[in-house]
C-alpha cells in the first residue's frame, strides 16, 4: 500500500521527466530539420536583409541550444515563452485551443461509452443469437472502415442533405455552452465511431467472460434474474477490466481529434501543432508538446484513480 502523497509525487516526477524528454526531442528535431521561422513569416518576396532584421527581432539569430535552455528556464517557472509567429504568449494560445481538443475528446469518449456498453450488454446477454451476430458484424465493419472516409460522409450527409450542421462554426464555451457542444458534436461522433467498434469488441468478450464467472453463478443461486445480474455484477466488473483498454482508446481519441479538427476546421491543438511545425515556431511547438505530455500523464493517472475508485482490490494496492 502506497500513500496518496507518494503516488502523486511519483506522478509529478514522471511528468517532469516525460516533459523534459519530449521537449529535448523537440529540440533535437528542430536542430536537424531545415527551415527558418523568419523566412517562413516573410515569404519569397522579402529580401535577405529584411529576413535578417526579423531574425534579430525574433531572437532566432541565437543558436537553438541557447534558445532551448532559455525556454527550459522559463518553462520551469511556468512561462512557456512567446510564439514566434503569433507573437502572443504560448500559454494563452494553448489555453484558447484546449477547449476544442479536450471537449471533443471528452464528448467522443462519452459517446463511445454510452453506445458501446449497451451494445455489448445486448450481445453478451445472448451470445450467438441473431441480434448478437448482426450487431457484431456491424462492429466488424466499423472496425475496418477508415474514420477518415466516415468523417467525410458524415459531413456530406449533415451539411448537404440535412443542412443542420456547419463545419467551422465554432463557439467558445465561455460564449455559449450549448452552441459549443453543438459545434463539437458531429466531429466527436466521427472520432467516436471507429473506437466504438474496438471498445464494443472488448466489452462483449469481457461481459461474456464475466457471465460465466463464479460470482455470476452465485448471484444466480441467490435468485437474481439474468438482467439484474448483468446490471449489478457483470457491467461493473467489465467496466473495471476495461479501464485500461478505455485509457488506450482515449489516447487514440486524442490523436483522432487532432486529425478531425483539420477536416472540420476547428481551432484546436492539432491545427496549432501543425502550424507550429510548418512555421518552425520552436517555443510554440515546445509548449504544445509540453501540454500534450501533461495531458497524457494526467490521463493515465486519472485512469488509475478511476480504477481505484471502483475497484477495492486496487485501492488495497493488490495487483489484479
Amino acid at each position, binding site marked *: 500500500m*502506497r500513500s496518496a502523497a507518494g503516488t502523486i509525487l511519483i506522478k509529478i516526477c514522471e511528468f517532469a521527466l516525460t516533459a523534459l524528454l519530449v521537449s529535448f526531442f523537440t529540440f533535437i528535431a528542430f536542430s536537424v530539420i531545415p527551415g527558418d521561422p523568419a523566412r517562413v513569416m516573410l515569404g519569397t518576396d522579402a529580401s535577405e536583409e529584411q529576413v535578417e532584421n526579423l531574425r534579430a527581432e525574433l531572437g532566432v539569430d541565437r543558436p537553438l541550444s541557447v534558445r532551448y535552455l532559455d525556454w527550459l528556464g522559463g518553462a520551469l517557472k511556468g512561462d512557456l515563452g512567446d510564439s514566434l509567429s503569433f507573437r502572443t504568449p504560448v500559454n494563452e494560445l494553448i489555453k484558447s485551443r484546449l477547449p476544442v481538443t479536450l471537449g471533443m475528446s471528452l464528448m467522443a469518449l462519452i459517446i463511445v461509452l454510452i453506445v458501446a456498453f449497451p451494445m455489448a450488454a445486448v450481445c453478451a446477454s445472448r451470445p450467438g443469437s441473431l441480434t448478437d451476430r448482426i450487431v457484431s458484424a456491424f462492429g466488424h465493419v466499423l472496425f475496418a472502415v477508415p474514420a477518415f472516409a466516415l468523417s467525410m460522409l458524415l459531413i456530406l450527409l449533415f451539411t448537404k442533405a440535412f443542412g443542420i450542421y456547419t463545419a467551422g462554426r465554432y463557439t467558445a464555451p465561455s460564449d455559449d455552452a450549448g452552441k459549443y457542444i453543438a459545434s463539437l458534436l458531429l466531429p466527436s461522433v466521427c472520432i467516436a465511431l471507429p473506437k466504438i467498434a474496438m471498445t464494443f469488441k472488448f466489452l462483449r468478450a469481457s461481459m461474456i467472460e464475466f457471465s460465466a464467472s463464479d460470482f455470476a453463478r452465485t448471484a444466480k443461486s441467490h435468485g437474481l434474474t439474468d438482467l439484474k445480474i448483468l446490471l449489478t455484477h457483470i457491467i461493473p466488473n467489465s467496466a473495471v477490466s476495461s479501464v485500461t483498454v478505455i485509457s488506450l482508446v482515449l489516447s487514440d481519441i486524442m490523436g483522432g481529434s487532432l486529425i478531425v479538427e483539420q477536416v472540420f476546421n476547428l481551432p484546436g491543438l492539432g491545427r496549432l501543432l501543425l502550424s507550429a511545425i510548418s512555421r518552425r515556431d520552436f517555443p510554440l511547438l515546445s509548449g504544445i508538446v509540453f501540454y500534450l505530455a501533461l495531458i497524457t500523464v494526467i490521463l493515465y493517472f486519472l485512469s488509475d484513480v478511476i480504477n481505484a475508485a471502483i475497484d477495492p482490490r486496487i485501492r*488495497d494496492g493488490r495487483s489484479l
Partner: protein
Amino acid sequence: MRYKGNILEVKGLTLTVSNNGEPGAVILNGLSFAVRTGEIMGLIGNSGSGKTMTALAVSGLLSDFAKIESGQIIFEGEDLTAKTAKERRKLLGEKIGVIFQDPSSALDPLQTVGSNLAEILRVRNLDKEAGRRQVLDMLRIVGFEDPEQIASRYPHRLSGGQRQRVLIAGAALMKPSLLIADEPTSSLDTVTSMSIMQLLHEMCQEMGISILFISHNLNAVRNFCDRVMVMKDGTVIDSDTSWDIMGQPRSAFTADLLAKSRLDPDKLGLTAGKAADDAPCVLSVKDLSAGYSNGALLRKSSRTVIRDITFDIKEGDCLGLIGSSGCGKTTLIKTLLGLIRPSSGSIEKNGRIAAVFQDPATSLNPAHTVRWHLNEALKASGRNAGGDKDSLFIRTLNETGLAEEHLHRFPAQLSGGQRQKVAIAMCLIGEPSAIIADEPFSALDAASQASVIKLLSDINRERKTTMLIVSHNLRVIRAMCSRVIVMNDGVIVESGDTASVLSAPATETTRMLLDARMYGV
C-alpha cells in the same frame, strides 16, 4: 414447517450436453436417487462422473447447452422439470441454496460482503433494515464474531474459509429446505475445511436444512453424511448409509475409491522415503528470513513473512512440510527456489532443485506442447540427451504414467492429473537432486491424487531423489515422509520423525491439524 418425506427425488434423469451443434454427449444416464428431509446426503465420484451436473440440474443452473432428455426432479412434491426458468430461478436462494467449490471468485469483488448478501433480500423486495439485521444474524450464525465489520469488508480481504462461510450464509439466508454443496471444502486447508463441515452439520441439525453434499473424497464424508451414494458414468452405482459403505463397499469401484481416498500405504504400495544415515546433505537452510518488499522508488518497506528457518535435507530423504494456510509455507518454498531473495540467513544447495506447483491449470504453458515443455527442461538442465531426444521424452513420460500419444498434445488437451504428471516429467528430465512439491495433489480428485502421490513416492524411492512435500493433508505426509516439519506464523514450531510428531504432537498447531483428520479431510 419442513416438508415431510423425501425433500428431493430424482427419477430416471438423463441429460446430454451438446458442443457446437454436435449431438449431445450423455452426461447423466437414468440417474435416480432421493434425499430425505433433514439428512445429509453424500454424493461421491471421480471427476467427470456427473456429480456437478447433477447439482446444476437440481438447482436449475444448467447452461444452454445441457438438455434434460428425460426424467423428473421432484422437489417438495413438485416436478421442477415442468417449471419455467423464471419460477425455478425464484426457488433459488429461497427454497434451494447452493454453494460451490472455489470460494475465491464466488463473490463480486466490487461489492462489500453485506451488499453481496443483501441482494438476495433486495431482489425479493424485503424491508431494508430488517434485511440488514437478517444478514448480520446469519453472518453471526456462520461463525463471525463481528458481523458488522465483516459485512462492510470487500471479499478480497477475506480468507478462503471466511469467504466460504459468507457463501454459506448467503445460501442459508432465506432458510431454504435444501442446500446443495458442491465440493465446498476441496480448495481449503485442513483446519478450515473441518470447521466448514462442522458448520454445515450444525445447520442441518439446528435449522433442519437437508444437504446434498458432493465430494470426490469418499473418506471425507464418512463422519459427516447420513447416507452416501457413489456415482460413476452418470449413474449411481452404490448407495447406503455411510458406515455401511465404508465398512463393506458393495462394488469393486467403491472399494478402490475408498482405498485411494484413504491413501492406504499398503494398498497403494507406498513407503516413506528415508535417507541413509551417512547420506550427504542436499539442502541446508540456516537462520533463513525472507519477505516481500513493496513500495515505491523512494520509500522501501518490507514485510518479513518467514523468520529463522533452519533445517537440513539429506539425499534420498522425503521431508514433509505442514501448516495451515498463511503460515509461510509458500514463501519458504519460493525462497528456497530462488524466486525471493532472503533478507538474512543462508541456503546451501547441493545440486539442482526442481519444483512442482499446486495448480494444474497454470503449471504448463498453454501455448506449447508437452514435447516443447520436456525439451525446454532438457535444455535448461544442460543434459546431453544422448542421441534421440524423443525416446528420452517418451521414456520419461512412461515413467510418470503417460504415453507417447501425450507428447504432442497441448496442455488444454490434458486433464489436471495428466498436467501435474507432465510437470513431474519436466522435473525428472533435469535429473534433479531434489524436488519440491507444493501441494501438487490438492486440486485433483481422489483417484488422480493417489496416482500422483504414488508417482512421487516411487521417484523418491527408486531414483533416490530427495523430496520436500508441502501439504496440509496429513495422510499424504504420513504415507510419504519419514520426517516432518510444522510451520506456524512464519516459524518452524515442531520438527522430527513423522510418526512421533503426528502421534505425540507437542504444539497446538500440530494438534489442530490432527483434529481435522477426525473428519477425514
